[in-house]
């Protein structure tokens, strides 16, 4: 059996992993443009830092693991992980924060498990969760947006490139209370006295639908996600599952618009990292469930957990934790959502041992 002829099929389609990765990156461009418009160069600096760190770390690890470096770097997965991580981190995060996050994502999120395709946890979310828990101050310093100085003269947005670089590389030089403010979800969570309308009037962080400026960014993520759905880069099941579950939960537990309100569905859908999570994080194929039905369940689980942690948990935004928790469940979901194969009367589900024919 020494002869090894190539097996059929002898022709392959045009879809390649690298193209998928590049399309995903292309879909983030509208969001990046808006973020740069509103918040300055912070996002781009993040992306540059995260991208370089991730690629350098991955190259180092590949060499340690004695794998062909350029072959694996070229598939674009490290860049995508770093890019999405950079979008999730607050703009103008200190450079060492970006380094720690990317490092964790690459090492503990991906290569520890064997590289591309082997990791159970979403690497970007793993990196994010680690720095969120370790450096809460830096991770809750969200910058103010363009035009804030008209509403609150004490705050100044950082729109210049040099200022941005200074903030990223010499983090202590500008005190945070000059340029950071709480996000809409933050304020909602900590609100105990004002009704929603009063809160909106008092806090400029609220825009017309959700957080000011951030709502437009969320819509940009939505646009990017719809582009990827149109291009059939992934199926609709996971995003729709997440958004639908979140909407249903927020409808059920809305609790009116008084001081005890938990926020309208629109606020939840367009606030925080929901849209980014729905179209770019939950759809990561490696860590989500396998079958279409499984993905629907996975997305729904993420949506429910996001709501639960936001409303009854300790964090204002919870996409990272929700995704990581559902990553743990993904293999079990797979076992229980196998499709019915041709010629069988029903699907063989569950974890039982196979009965020998």
């Amino acid at each position, binding site marked *: *059996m020494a002869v*090894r002829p190539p*097996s059929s099929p002898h022709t392959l389609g045009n879809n390649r992993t690298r193209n998928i990765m590049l399309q995903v990156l292309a879909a983030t461009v509208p969001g990046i443009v808006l973020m740069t418009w509103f918040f300055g160069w912070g996002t781009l600096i993040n992306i540059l830092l995260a991208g370089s760190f991730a690629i350098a770390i991955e190259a180092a690890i590949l060499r340690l693991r*004695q*794998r*062909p470096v350029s*072959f*694996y770097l070229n598939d674009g997965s490290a860049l995508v992980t770093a890019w999405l991580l950079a979008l999730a981190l607050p703009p103008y995060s200190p450079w060492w924060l970006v380094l720690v996050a990317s490092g964790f994502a690459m090492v503990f999120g991906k290569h520890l498990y064997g*590289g591309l395709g082997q990791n159970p946890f979403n690497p970007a979310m793993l990196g994010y969760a680690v720095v969120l828990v370790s450096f809460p101050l830096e991770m809750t310093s969200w910058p103010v947006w363009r035009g804030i100085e008209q509403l609150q003269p004490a705050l100044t947005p950082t729109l210049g490139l040099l200022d941005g670089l200074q903030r990223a590389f010499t983090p202590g030089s500008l005190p945070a209370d000059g340029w950071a403010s709480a996000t809409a979800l933050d304020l909602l969570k900590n609100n105990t006295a004002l009704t929603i309308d009063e809160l909106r009037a008092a806090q400029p962080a609220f825009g017309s639908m959700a957080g000011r400026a951030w709502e437009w960014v969320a819509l940009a993520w939505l646009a990017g996600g719809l582009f990827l759905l149109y291009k059939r880069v992934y199926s609709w099941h996971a995003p729709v599952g997440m958004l639908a579950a979140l909407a249903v939960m927020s409808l059920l537990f809305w609790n009116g618009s008084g001081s005890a309100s938990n926020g309208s569905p629109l606020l939840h859908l367009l606030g925080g990292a929901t849209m980014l999570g729905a179209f770019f994080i939950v759809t990561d194929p490696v860590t989500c469930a396998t079958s279409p039905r499984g993905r629907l369940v996975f997305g729904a689980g993420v949506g429910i957990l996001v709501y639960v942690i936001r409303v009854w948990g300790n964090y204002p935004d919870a996409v990272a934790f929700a995704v990581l928790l559902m990553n743990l469940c993904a293999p079990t979901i797979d076992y229980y959502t196998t499709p019915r194969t041709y010629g069988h009367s029903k699907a063989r589900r569950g974890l039982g041992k196979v009965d020998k024919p």
Partner: protein
Amino acid sequence: MSIILTAVLTLLVLALIFGAVLGYAAVRFRVEGDPIVEQINALLPQTQCGQCGHPGCKPYAEAIANGAPINKCPPGGETTIQALADLLDVEPLPLDGEHGEEKPPMVAYIREAECIGCTKCIQACPVDAILGAARQMHTVIVAECTGCDLCLEPCPVDCIDMLPLPVTIQNWRWDLPRPVTGSARGGAA
């Protein structure tokens, strides 16, 4: 004080009840015999070659049931060790090289020109796979030969060879593809 007494008495009564149930079940639903030896024997390749150090597969199965290591069977090879490990819920060990190496399936072949018809190989074959009689030609029934090579040694003229089974269209197989580029992950046949 009375509370403690009540508690102790209650637990005692419960223990008696459940003990009685378990005892009854142990007698009423008892499984006869020791089927584990049969199950182990079913996994062994039945070449009866003795390379494990036991005179046959059934004795080795009994030895395994009594705790002998599972990695002594070269004809069974890796697959058998893995299957035994799964059955007995122990760690699979690599094949013990002392007892031989895993070889591709072989069959014996008698060079008929040299055979003297002494029947020593017929007596040695554990599965009666050699056809012949005293002073008549001996030949190996290929379909029954397990490749145990116990017949080689008794032959006084050394006319038996062990040949690998020929590959034909009927038994040619696709190998697993080469593993992912550069990785040492197993799978290559």
